[in-house]
């Protein structure tokens, strides 16, 4: 039995990681109206990249994020240029072609990982993997704290880019009104490449961080993709606060249910799926829609 402080601290820590995963999807969806089903495979690849840097070169998994991030950005740009840009452009909703193509990319990545790293379960054990410290009176694993810090830094980085650079503003402009962005001189194709690179980098970094918390196989990432979907359905794709709120709701439910009920750990993934289902049925506009409706209800 855990107290409320424990659940809250753990929720905030998970939420930061979840938001990082969800952002990778949201940036790509925003610019291209494509749901990147390969996100799970890219997270898995990020975990293995971190693993290889750790075992081959002894690079600390959190320091290796500084390598994995840029490397995955480039990989995303190449993936876009070679494959994704050939898709017919999605309208308001993602095209079937884009879903199939990126699902195919996921399968290719998976089999690539089986080929290179075999199907054996791997994990990263550092000197601090088993250590923990007290945060607000709650014992928290040191890797979890580093994951929290890494997530927050990634999110701050993304927001600074989106808010202050011409490139970032161009990404937001294409997201909010593509034609208007073209008319302002934005090359939507280059921006799509950058957005796909950013989304891929976020998947890689999220995967690298996950590898310090969980054991993984080439099949890794599936349940986290589902969590990212759930967050996006809850919080919407467009707003920073929406994604953060969605991530918090999911993380709180997961942590709360495992702390205060006898729900077996193996059922944890059912939380995000149930939440996704309930959200889609009960308030398909997600949290922003729910808040909007509540506002009008109390007027």
């Amino acid at each position: 039995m855990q107290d409320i402080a424990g659940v809250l601290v753990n929720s905030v820590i998970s939420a930061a990681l979840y938001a990082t995963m969800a952002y990778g999807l949201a940036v790509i969806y925003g610019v291209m109206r494509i749901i990147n089903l390969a996100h799970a495979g890219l997270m898995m690849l990020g975990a293995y990249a971190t693993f290889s840097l750790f075992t081959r070169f002894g690079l600390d998994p959190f320091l290796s994020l500084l390598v994995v991030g840029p490397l995955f950005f480039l990989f995303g740009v190449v993936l876009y240029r070679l494959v994704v840009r050939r898709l017919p452009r999605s309208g308001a909703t993602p095209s079937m072609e884009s879903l199939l193509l990126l699902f195919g990319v996921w399968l290719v990545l998976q089999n690539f990982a089986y080929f290179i790293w075999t199907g054996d379960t791997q994990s990263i054990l550092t000197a601090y993997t088993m250590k923990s410290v007290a945060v607000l009176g709650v014992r928290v694993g040191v890797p979890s704290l580093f994951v929290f810090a890494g997530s927050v830094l990634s999110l701050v980085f993304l927001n600074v880019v989106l808010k202050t650079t011409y490139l970032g503003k161009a990404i937001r402009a294409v997201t909010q009104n593509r034609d208007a962005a073209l008319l302002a001189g934005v090359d939507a194709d280059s921006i799509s490449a950058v957005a796909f690179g950013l989304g891929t980098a976020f998947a890689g970094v999220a995967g690298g961080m996950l590898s310090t918390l969980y054991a993984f196989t080439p099949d890794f990432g599936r349940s986290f993709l589902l969590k990212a979907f759930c967050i996006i359905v809850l919080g919407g794709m467009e707003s920073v606060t929406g994604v953060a709120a969605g991530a918090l709701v999911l993380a709180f439910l997961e942590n709360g249910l495992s702390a205060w009920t006898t729900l077996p750990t193996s059922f944890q993934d059912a939380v995000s799926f149930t939440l996704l289902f309930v959200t889609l049925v009960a308030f398909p506009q997600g949290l922003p829609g729910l808040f909007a409706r509540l506002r009008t209800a109390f007027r």
Partner: protein
Amino acid sequence: MRLLTVESLDVFYGDVQAVRNVSFTVDEGEVVTLIGANGAGKSTTLRALAGLLVPRAGRVVFDGQELAGRPANELASRGIVLVPEGRQLWPAMTVLENLRMGAYPKHARARADAILGEIFAMFPILERRVSQKAGTLSGGEQQMCAIGRGLMAQPRLLLLDEPALGLSPLLVREVFASLRAIRARGVTIVLVEQNVPHALALADRAYVLETGRVTLTGTASELLVDSRVRDGYLGYGSV
């Protein structure tokens, strides 16, 4: 000096031809208006000139260069700037961000601050709204923001698609006053506008479009007294 020559332009939406064999010219510093009923092909012509639609046939020569079919972002960088129908602002970006993004083309960035000052002088309300999200502006403010965004690109040719659509008579007058100010600064303008009296009062010359074709052309003052224009487009009220 001739700035724009459009020759035998054909534009399709899928299989439907919206613009047929349209030709017209615009000189540097001139204001030319395209008038016509809904669906006459005015907006389609502008969208093709701005690169949002690819013409199936015809030539677009801008400043001596053949530019038909080039992508919109390239045309914007060359100075052809469309202020689209319905404003098309970025709703979740602030007014200031919308305006600043207007200066996205590299050549426009250096003078962005100076132009921004001129836009605030022209539309003082925008300066009071700088940190407000564009989606929360009133229709008139949105139109001013859209025009301001277009000016931030320092256009050589400003294409305006229905800038007065959906605005109250008072705001229509305000928007046209600002267009006169823009014209006074020597910006070349092609204006598409349902409000024909206002459009003709502003323009030097006009082309009348009917079902995708140019059916009549002349100076604005000639067309203001032309019986066909009076019957067709000036029926309701006057300036």
